[in-house]
C-alpha cells in the first residue's frame, strides 16, 4: 500500500497531467486547478488507500473528471464535451505514464516555455491564463481566427519538439 506521504507525493508529481484532464472539460486554468485541489482534499481527508501508483492515478483521474463535470453543471454550462469513450482512452494513456519519469519532461517543458518569444508568450497567456477564446485572442492580437489556430498549433508543436530535443540531449542522444 502507498503511504499517505507517497500518495500525496505521486499526486503532486502528476499534478499537471491530472489538472490537464480537468482542463479538457472545463477549459479554464483556474477551474482546473480547483478541481485538482478538490481531488487532493479527498485523497487526504477520505479514508482511501491504493496498492499501486497506477491504482492511485486511475482514481485521481476519475475523481478530477467528476469534479470537472460538477463544475460545469453548477455553472449551467452547456458546452460540447468529448465522448466518454474518448475520455477513457485519454485517461488510460495518461495513467500508463509513470510519474517519476514524467518529471524530466515537465522540467524540459518549463525551460522551453521560458525560452518562448514575446508574441508566443502573449498568445499563451491570453488563451490559457486569461481564458480568452481564440476569437478574442484574434481581436486582441489583431489576427484572423485561422491565423490564431495556426499559430497556436505551431506553438504547441514547437514546444513538444523542444521538449523532445531537451530529453534527447539529457540522455546523451544529441
Amino acid at each position, binding site marked *: 500500500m502507498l503511504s*499517505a506521504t507517497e500518495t500525496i507525493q505521486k499526486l503532486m508529481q502528476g499534478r499537471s497531467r491530472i489538472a490537464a484532464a480537468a482542463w*479538457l472539460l472545463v477549459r479554464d486554468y483556474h477551474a482546473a486547478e480547483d478541481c485538482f485541489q478538490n481531488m487532493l482534499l479527498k485523497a487526504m481527508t477520505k479514508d482511501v488507500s491504493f496498492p499501486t501508483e497506477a491504482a492511485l492515478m486511475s482514481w485521481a483521474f476519475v475523481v478530477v473528471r467528476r469534479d470537472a463535470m460538477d463544475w460545469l453543471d453548477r*455553472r449551467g454550462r452547456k458546452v460540447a464535451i468529448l465522448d466518454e469513450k474518448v475520455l477513457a482512452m485519454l485517461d488510460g494513456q495518461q495513467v500508463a505514464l509513470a510519474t517519476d519519469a514524467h*518529471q524530466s519532461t515537465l522540467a524540459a517543458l*518549463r*525551460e522551453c516555455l521560458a525560452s518562448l518569444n514575446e508574441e508566443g508568450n502573449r498568445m499563451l497567456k491570453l488563451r490559457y491564463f486569461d481564458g480568452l477564446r481564440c476569437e478574442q485572442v484574434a481581436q486582441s492580437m489583431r489576427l484572423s481566427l485561422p491565423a490564431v*489556430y495556426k499559430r497556436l498549433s505551431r506553438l504547441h508543436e514547437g*514546444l513538444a519538439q523542444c521538449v523532445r530535443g531537451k530529453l534527447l540531449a539529457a540522455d546523451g542522444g544529441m
Partner: protein
Amino acid sequence: MKLTEPQLYLIHRYLDGQCTETELGAINALLIENQEARDFLLVVSEQAIVAGDNFSVSEIAGDRRATAGVWHSSSSEYPSRESPSSGFGVKTEARSRTWIGFSMIACTILFATATAWNVYASFRPGRVPVGAIKHVQGLLDFRGYRGEQASRIEAGQQVYAGDILESKSCDSWLEIDIAEDSRMTLASYSSLRMLQSARVGVQEYELRRGGLWVDSRLGKDRSVRIITPTATIDASDSTLNIRVTETETSLWVHRGQATVQQILDGQTAKLQAGLELSMSLERSGRLEVRPQPLPVHTWTLRWPLDHQYAYGRILSESSQRPRLQAMPMLWPIPNRDPLLLYVSAIGAWGCSPNPIVVQAGSVLRFQGRNQIFHKVRLGFSTQTLHGVFGGKFEIDIEPEHLGKPGEVWQLDLPIDRFHALYPQLNAKPGGLQLIDVYALTIQDDVGLEILGVELIEPDGSTH
C-alpha cells in the same frame, strides 16, 4: 500520420467551446481513430496547465494585482497573511522559473520529511486575497485552500480563493470586506467558499448553505457573483439577502438590482429593489418574483407544525392538544465540552409569510407543560429585518411560576423582561425580526412541552 490543418482547427474549436454537434462527432471519431490526435490534445492540455502555472507565478511576483481583477485595492490596505519578514510578497517574488526547475528535484527530499499539507503548499502557485475578515461572532470554522483548518477566525485575516468559511451555530456570523465600501455578512449555520474567478472584474463566491447579506458598491465593469446550489446571482451596486438550501434559493433585493439565473434550465430574472424571488427544485424550479411582503407585529403558532421549522418531537394524538416535546441537543461551546440541553424550538420565520417584527412593549405568550418541578428557560432569537443575527433574548422561569407538574401553564412575558445575550448587538429586541422561539432545560429532561406561542402587540391584539 501527421495531423492536417483542418484536424488541428477542429481540436482548437473543441478547446474553444465553439464546436457544433457535427464537429463534436467528427472530433470524437478523430480521437478514437488517430493516436496523434490524442497525443496532440494531451500535449496541449498539459502545456496549458504548465503555462498557466508560469503566468500565475510571474503575475503575482510582478505587481501582486489580482490576476482576474478580483481585488483592485492596494495591497497595503490588507496586510499579508504571513508576517512581513517571511511574507507572501517576499516568497512569491523569490519564485523564478529557475526556482520552479529546481523545485522538482528538491521535492523528493521534501516529501520524505514534510507533512502532506506543507508539501502541497510548497507546490501551489501563489494566490491573491479575495477579501478580509472585518467582524466575527460565535462558533466559526475556517478551512484554508491549503487544507489548514481552524476554529479561530480573527478580524483582519485575509481570505483567498479556495478558502471556506462556516458559521456553526445560530448566533455565529462574520463580516468580510470584499472591496472598498463593499462587504458581505455570512449568517448563522452557513458556509461560504471563495472562488477564483476567471472573468475580469468579477468576484465569485459559492454560498453552499445558509444565508448571506451582500452590500456591494462596486464601480462600473465590476460585479459580485454568488453561486448557490441552484442559481447564480450577479450584482454590482446592490444590497441583497440570499438564503439557500440544497434545493432552494431565496433572494431579497433591498437596493439596486440583481440578475438571477437558475442552473436547472438557465431561466433568468432581473430583480429591482423591493422584490423577492424564490426558486425551488421541489416546485418544478419555477421562478417566483413578487413584491416583498410587509412586516407584521403579531404571530400565533398554528398546528399542525411543519417539521422543517421545529426542533423537538411533534405530538398530535387526537385525545390531547398538539404539542412539541423537548428533545436533547448538544450545544457546542468553544474550548469546552458541549452542554446537554433539552429543547423545543419553533422557527417562527418559516411559519409566517410575512416577516414578524417585535415591537418595544410586545408580549410573548408561552403555553407549556413539564412533568417535573423544575426551572425552564424561555427565549427567542432575532435578526435585523431581512438581515443577519440580531441577538438572542432569554428569561429563566422558576418552577413555582409554572404550576404543578403535568398541568398546562401560561405565561405572558413582556419582551423587555428578556435578558439580551448579545447586548453589544442589540440591548433590546424592539424593531428586530423574530426568527425562533424556544423553551429548554439544561442537563435535566423534565418532559418539557410547548403547546402554544403568541406574539402580542403592545396594545394587546393578536393575529
